[in-house]
């Protein structure tokens, strides 16, 4: 569907900028990818020879993404050059490539943001009117029937209760993971030893001590007496939970730099009154005296505590100074804190054998587990798709080679292969599990995409496109790859659950992070020794895995039903 009108439009202004930007983006990708590979290599050699690794952390841990980046970078450079040469399809190709880059870059870490930024810029430029004219019309035409199908798919999604349920659960779990700090009362590795192995719903027996800073300042110029600092302190019910010790107001006043006169002594006085600030200001000195709870004075440095009552009330604290000489300046550092005790929050789901709160740990682990599952799937899909597409499209010896390699990979049971890789990498950690699973999983996608590409390649529209001079990469990106999305998305969604299960399984056996880290599989492993006396230790993490994996599988399975052309009804 060549539109002759677009072909002769001169490339200028924003379009030209975009082309160069794409080239730059490509080069940057390649550079980043190469440095990561080199960094990994150097790190490996240094570790093998026992030297300290001098490779910066942000370059390590993502070798496969680096490979993908190099590939996409190369394609991007070519694409940029094609854009300069009036090739309209290059623009829609760059649209896909930029999106792909962004997705992969999300899993790299800090360097990824650079790539994401430039890619976003490219995408924005693509939609600037001057540039849009080059490609959007054709793109819409090509996409036309697909958007209609897409909308029909959405309609079917709404009608399917299982898919909707799955999506809702996934969204809930992701939110829980993201909101972890706000919905948990304990940290991921926090332990309350006295609370070990308590059943769900137990209130903790140990009071927790907390301080809240209610005033602080550090100034260089202080005026002479009378200089008074006074504020209100509001002691509420939350501060009065544990009354073995009443809350107290803590004063820390430090005189600094008493000036040239070294013999200057400054007297600090701290007072606490049982009245709120408004009343304090309005009272007479004798009324104030009657309400005074405590006072303390000291030269130059003072640290003191004044205890308050056991009812909710407002108090006023006062700090003032008296110097021996009246013409001095000094600087003072004041910190006022309210210190109180409270109970540890309820252990909703009990604790494990070292006192870690199970509910909190599960929520924190959600973040970890979800992150690595999604990363693994993204990387495996990227690698597998690129290899599979190349293999399917170019055929020949490359195809044979890829087929044999994937065959060998398939011959191994996944868990065992992953274990062997983790052992080979040396350390047993979550990152290594990640890498191992990426290696284990990519053949699935390579085969999948290869199959699709093979089927599409034979279709007539490819021959038609080639007969009007379309380049290979254009055909691949604009026509073939969009058609491979459907089974890919289904498989990827369901695999997110599968990867989660495998990663948890590996942690369970002991190939993952060391004990103490919040990870679902690991929690089950720890809990199994106490199965008969404290079943909740293993029960809840397992349920978490089940629900998460089930949600992904519901969505994936439901989408498969929806997208299957043989099952679609119009």
């Amino acid at each position, binding site marked *: 569907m060549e539109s002759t009108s677009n072909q002769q439009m001169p490339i200028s202004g924003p379009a030209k900028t975009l082309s160069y930007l794409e080239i730059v983006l490509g080069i940057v990708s390649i550079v980043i990818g190469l440095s990561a590979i080199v960094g990994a290599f150097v790190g490996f050699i240094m570790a093998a020879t026992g030297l300290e690794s001098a490779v910066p952390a942000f370059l390590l841990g993502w070798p496969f993404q680096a490979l993908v980046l190099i590939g996409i970078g190369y394609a991007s450079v070519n694409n940029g050059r094609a854009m300069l040469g009036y090739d309209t399809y290059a623009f829609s190709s760059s649209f896909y490539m930029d999106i792909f880059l962004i997705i992969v870059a999300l899993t790299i870490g800090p360097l990824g943001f650079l790539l994401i930024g430039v890619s976003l810029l490219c995408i924005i430029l693509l939609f600037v009117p001057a540039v849009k004219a080059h490609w959007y019309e054709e793109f819409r035409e090509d996409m036309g029937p697909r958007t209609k199908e897409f909308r029909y798919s959405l309609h079917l999604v709404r009608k399917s*209760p*299982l898919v909707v349920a799955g999506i809702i659960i996934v969204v809930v779990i992701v939110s829980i993971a993201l909101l972890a700090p706000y919905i948990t009362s304990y940290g991921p590795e926090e332990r309350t030893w006295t609370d070990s192995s308590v059943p769900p719903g137990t209130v903790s027996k140990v009071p927790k001590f907390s301080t809240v800073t209610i005033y602080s300042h550090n100034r260089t110029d202080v005026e002479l007496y009378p200089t008074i600092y006074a504020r209100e302190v509001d002691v509420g019910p939350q501060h009065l939970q544990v009354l073995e010790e009443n809350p107290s107001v803590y004063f820390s006043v430090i005189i600094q730099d008493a000036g040239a006169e070294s013999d200057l002594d400054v007297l600090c006085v701290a007072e606490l009154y049982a009245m709120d600030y408004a009343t304090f200001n309005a009272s007479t000195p004798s009324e104030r005296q009657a309400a005074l709870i405590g006072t303390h004075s000291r030269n130059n440095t003072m640290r003191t505590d004044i205890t308050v009552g056991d009812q909710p009330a407002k108090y006023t604290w006062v700090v003032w100074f008296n110097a021996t000489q009246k013409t001095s300046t000094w600087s003072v550092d004041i910190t006022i804190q309210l210190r109180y005790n409270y109970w540890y929050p309820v252990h909703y789901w009990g604790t494990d054998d070292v006192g870690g709160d199970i509910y909190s740990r599960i929520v924190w682990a959600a973040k970890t587990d979800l992150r690595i599952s999604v990363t693994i799937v993204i990387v495996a899909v990227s690698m597998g798709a690129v290899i599979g597409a190349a293999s399917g499209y170019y055929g020949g010896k490359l195809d044979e080679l890829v087929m*044999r390699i994937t*065959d*060998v990979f*398939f*011959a*191994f*049971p996944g*868990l*065992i292969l992953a*274990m*062997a890789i983790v*052992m*080979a990498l040396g350390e047993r950690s979550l990152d290594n599990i990640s890498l191992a699973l990426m290696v284990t999983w990519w053949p699935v996608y390579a085969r999948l995409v290869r199959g699709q590409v093979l089927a599409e390649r034979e279709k007539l529209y490819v021959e038609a496109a080639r007969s009007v001079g379309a380049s290979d990469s254009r055909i691949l990106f604009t026509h073939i790859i969009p058609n491979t999305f459907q089974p890919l998305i289904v498989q990827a969604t*369901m695999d997110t*659950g*599968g990867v989660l*299960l495998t990663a*948890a*399984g590996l942690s*369970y*056996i002991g190939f993952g992070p060391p004990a103490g880290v919040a990870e679902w*599989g690991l929690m*089950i492993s720890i809990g*199994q020794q106490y*199965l*008969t006396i404290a*079943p909740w230790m*293993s*029960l809840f*993490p*397992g349920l978490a*895995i*089940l629900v*998460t*994996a*089930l949600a*992904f*599988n*519901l969505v994936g*399975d439901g989408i*498969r*039903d929806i997208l*299957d052309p*043989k*099952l679609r009804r119009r």
Partner: protein
Amino acid sequence: MKLRDFILRRILLAIPVVFGVLTMTWFLSYVVGDPLSMYITERTPDAAIPGIIKSHGFDQPLYVQYFLYLRNLLSGDWGVSTSEASDMPVLQVISLRFPATIELAMVAMVFAVVLGIPLGILSATKKDRPIDHVTRVFSLAGVSMPIFWFGLLLKYVFYFQLSVHGLPALPGDYRYDITLWHNLVGDQGYVPITNFMLIDTLLFYHSPVLWWDAILHLTMPGFCLGYLTLAIITRMMRSSMLEVLKEDYITLARSKGLRERVVIYKHALRNALIPTVTVIGLAFGGLLSGAVLTETIFSWPGLGRWAVRAILNSDIAAINGFTLLVALIYVTANLIVDLVYGILDPRIRFG
């Protein structure tokens, strides 16, 4: 007849894969560790060492070693595994552990097929109705469940809780009750003959009691393992039934005045079974490769546990042996699946 050519072709295609695995394991044993440790362990008597070195060519160039490696494999020398209580030749370990895994896999498979196919048909014929949703969630849960956790749960409920409350409980460990065997047979306990408990107890020990004990021990791990496979089979059956039911020949069958029941169970099922059978075959191959996690939970003396221990101990002979066995299983499973496919689908048979 084309069927024979078909099989021959499949076998020929499988050979490179086996060779690839062979070569890779041989290569890895050199890269990762010390190839000598495959045959010589701490317990090998010193006198035997020079002989071993000679027969495996360790004093000769690499290509000779490779050739001797292959020759030794064929003649049954797969190295010595250090992951057992005492060092044992790899082939012997396999002969002891493989039957245990096979038995477990078969029980799991029977359970999965007997439940899975009808569920899949039910789900397909009543698509989008509540029973379909329930079945789908049920089978998807099987694929979403961490199998080790499921095993623990089963043990907790059916073994621990039942015995705590004084009810008859299912045994949760190992293949047989050791005390029972001691009481009935004597101190030597179970001396394996075929190492298939279900066969040995009946044919060689003539004891239905012991046979039943073996069955009881197979129940929980079999169910645990089978649930996952059940999920896979149900899903496959459902989707292939759905596809088949849209085909024109179903309309034709209806137009002939056949009952709906016949249409589904004769015309549709026969066609829908074809892709399902391939899945069953491959799943069985997967099961045989050692259900690591299930075996760990239920202390089942099978291949999976051996493999894990081997990896942890860097027991190269065992790792290579296991790898080779798995590759062979995979290739064989694929072959049988292709064969059955050819039998079921006449279009494939005749090209």
